[in-house]
């Protein structure tokens, strides 16, 4: 998983205060985040293979799915389009994490087959036959995590810089008001 050396502070307060002076600046900051997340999203989608990543992974849903798998839904069929469409950017804050931070931007994979492709073998860390066949023996971080690992640091630096610009903008406006 990508490291998180940059933690944004005061983003919500800055943007709320800046809204009073310069809504365009707020929108501009939002566009920076969206565009950066979109870049990551596109990159992640590009990592989804068109063909099933593993031989024998059927491309149509099972007629009689195993009742004990996924609440009776059975093993998901591989559909590269669905797997790609399942990747989305989100700015929901979500729950508070163990490090007392919340999300300010993330990629999610909502498709079941895409999620399996993303994380299979990740927890055990062992390259067994399944994970060996999956993606040529490479361990997990195959789509969204791979994208975040690749361009996440760059995104964070850019957004942190944009936030600093927003803070400066806010400070300048506050100084102006002060007189």
């Amino acid at each position: 998983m990508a490291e998180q050396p940059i933690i944004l502070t005061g983003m919500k307060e800055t943007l709320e205060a800046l809204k009073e002076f310069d809504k365009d600046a707020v929108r501009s900051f939002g566009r920076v985040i969206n565009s950066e997340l979109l870049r990551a999203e596109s990159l992640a989608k590009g990592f989804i293979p068109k063909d099933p990543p593993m031989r024998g992974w059927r491309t149509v849903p099972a007629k009689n799915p195993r009742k004990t798998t996924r609440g009776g839904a059975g093993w998901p069929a591989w559909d590269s389009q669905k797997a790609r469409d399942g990747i989305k950017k989100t700015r929901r804050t979500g729950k508070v994490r163990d490090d007392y931070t919340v999300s300010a931007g993330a990629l999610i994979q909502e498709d079941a087959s895409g999620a399996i492709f993303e994380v299979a073998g990740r927890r055990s860390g062992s390259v067994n036959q399944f994970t060996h066949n999956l993606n040529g023996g490479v361990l997990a971080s195959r789509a969204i995590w791979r994208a975040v690992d690749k361009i996440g640091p760059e995104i964070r630096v850019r957004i942190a810089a944009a936030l600093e610009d927003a803070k400066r903008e806010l400070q300048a406006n506050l100084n102006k008001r002060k007189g």
Partner: protein
Amino acid sequence: MATGAIVARVLSQYNGAGTKAAKKDLVTLSKGFDRMAKRSAKAFGIAAAASAAFAVKMGVDSVKAAIADEKSQALLANTLRNTTGANKEVIASVEDYIDKAQRALGITDDELRPAFAKLASITGSITQAQGLLGIAMDVSAGATVDMQTATNAVIKATQGNFKALRGLGVQLDATTIKTKDVQAALAAAAKTFGGAAATRAETFEFRMKRVGIAFSEAKETLGNALLPTIESFFQLLTQKVIPAIQTWLTANGDKLVAAFQMAIKAVFGFAIILYKIFDFVARNKDVFAGVAVILAAIFAAGKAVALVTAIQGIVKAFQVLRAAALGAAAAEAAATGGISVAAAAAGVAAFVGTVGLSMLALKKMNDEMDKAGSKVDGLEFSFDGLDKTTADFLSKIKNLNVNLKTGATNTGKLTAEQLKLVQTEKTLAALRKLGIAPTTEKDPIQLEAARLNLVKQGAVAEQARLAQILASQEAQLKANETLQRYADLLVVVQDSKISAEEVVVLAGKWGVSKEAVTVYIAAVYAVNDGKISTDEVDRLAGQWGVTKQQAAIYLDFFNALNDGKLDAKEIEKLKGQWGLTNAQVVEYGKQITAGVTPSALWPTPGNQARDSWKDALTALNAYVAASGAKIAAPEAPAAVTKSYLPPGFKPEVILPPQAKQPGDPGFIGPVAPKTTSTAPSIGSFTSPALVNKLLNRMPAMADGGIVNRPTIAMIGESGPEAVVPLSGGGFGGGSITINVQGSVISEGDLVAQIRNAILQGQNSGLSITKSAVAL
């Protein structure tokens, strides 16, 4: 977000939700601490009280044992001097022999000394007495009789009377009896009972007895350490207190009788007076204030994190209070045990009575404080129920800090949670009054969250860096403090001695105790030549009441800490030399830097008991001082100036009448001004080794440097230097004044004069520019 969706974090932020979660976790953590602290508080209190009580018991028993032992030793020594002409060394060797014998054989020195004294008297020889004592010990063990019986039998045998010896089971042949062959009789005794004492010593009973003897000897040793203080105590009692009371009794006897005949009210009033004389509450004002502040801080911190520290502080406060009460007890013991009752019966009665009454008052306060202390478990603290005489002070405390009682009354109808909130708010308000900045809702929590995050991520490097900066700053401050102390010492030893008054002044200036000052002076002197002699260690160990090893450790640390810190090399050296761990070296360094004295660094029951006695002495001095206005006390003797410099510190004049110049042999510092003043200067200071050592420890500025505040430093140690103020003129801002003296005939002479002046200016640090030499 769909259930089961995979999330890859791109951006993280702190916001209110994170803050709330962090706060919640901190509260949970605090509750954990709280529970732990509650469980341990009682144990801490009990252990502290028990150890304090044990220390005092040990002290009292030890003094008694030491007094008895000293008497026994004195009697034996006197007998040996009179009968065998033994000198000090021989008597010491006999004492050593007796000590070894009692430890090895389980026979007490109280039995051995009289026996040895008798045998020495009979034989007139130490050597023969030792031999006969050995036989007597064997006979005592073999025949199962006490040492006195066995010794008497041996003595009679040496006089040709073998009846007693035979009665104990020694078989003598007819020839020996008939010829009264003493040597044969003693040989027979030795043959009969030889090795009996050693065999008996290995039995379980005597092994236990030997343990008991070793313990008694330890107590006697402890008592010997206490005796000097006790002696001072007695002197004060006999020379000042009792005469003062006697004088007062003479003048006010009738009134006193009337006062004692009055009912409990009058007696109680007398106790109150004495109680005030002891000035107990006033002397412990800071302790009370400290306890109150700590308690307030507990409430502000969610009743948790500081609790353990607070409990320790409270226990310490109780110990201080008890020590004062024990002071009164000590005075009572001394008054009843050490004074001629016939000579000062009335005075003793009055003193015991008044001290006893003050004891009641102190005991009452102790009991009440204990009750209040037990309430700490419930995190409540009540100042109610204390002695009436403390009411004024306590009311101030209440105003100063938190009026908990009022708060509880006004908020009695609120829910528990609301009560807690109100309590916290009140405490915060009280803290604001004390100048403690209130905390905001967000920042500290966010900082704590960030800190926890750093810890979780293993990013401790930043923390370490900050800690290093803080440590460096602290070390710098300590170094400056050390230099300041050296400078202070230089000033006070100008007259080649350090008086008690100067010690008091230094203690006040440095913010340490008088004992710490004397320890500091002794340590500086001991390490001033860069090496620590065995004699110094022995002397200081006795003076400080610690072992020789502890004294040596202290001096080594003191020497290593001359720059205010321990570097890695010094730590390694100390670890290797004294078998300490890294943590122990660092801890010792901290304590010694903080001015902790050796006796406090290695506390022993003896030291604690001795401190109690010292407290008692202080209390008694306070009593005498305070009673001076009311009691016709005898005039105080002329003040005696006590020198705190070590023995061997002999004043000597270093500078000859004609002051020496730099470079001359014997020059040790700035030249004494050529004035007619007789006041000593640093240049005429008396101990060259000490002065040079102190001067060498000052920062040298030979390589230049910038100072931005008052700093004591050495300049000119490696040749001429210029001290140039950075504000005002600064570098290059000076001008060169050329005084042309003598006759200048030729142009060459003028050029030479100007050139010399410019060179002189250049050597003084001036920048020679075109403008500077413009005509």
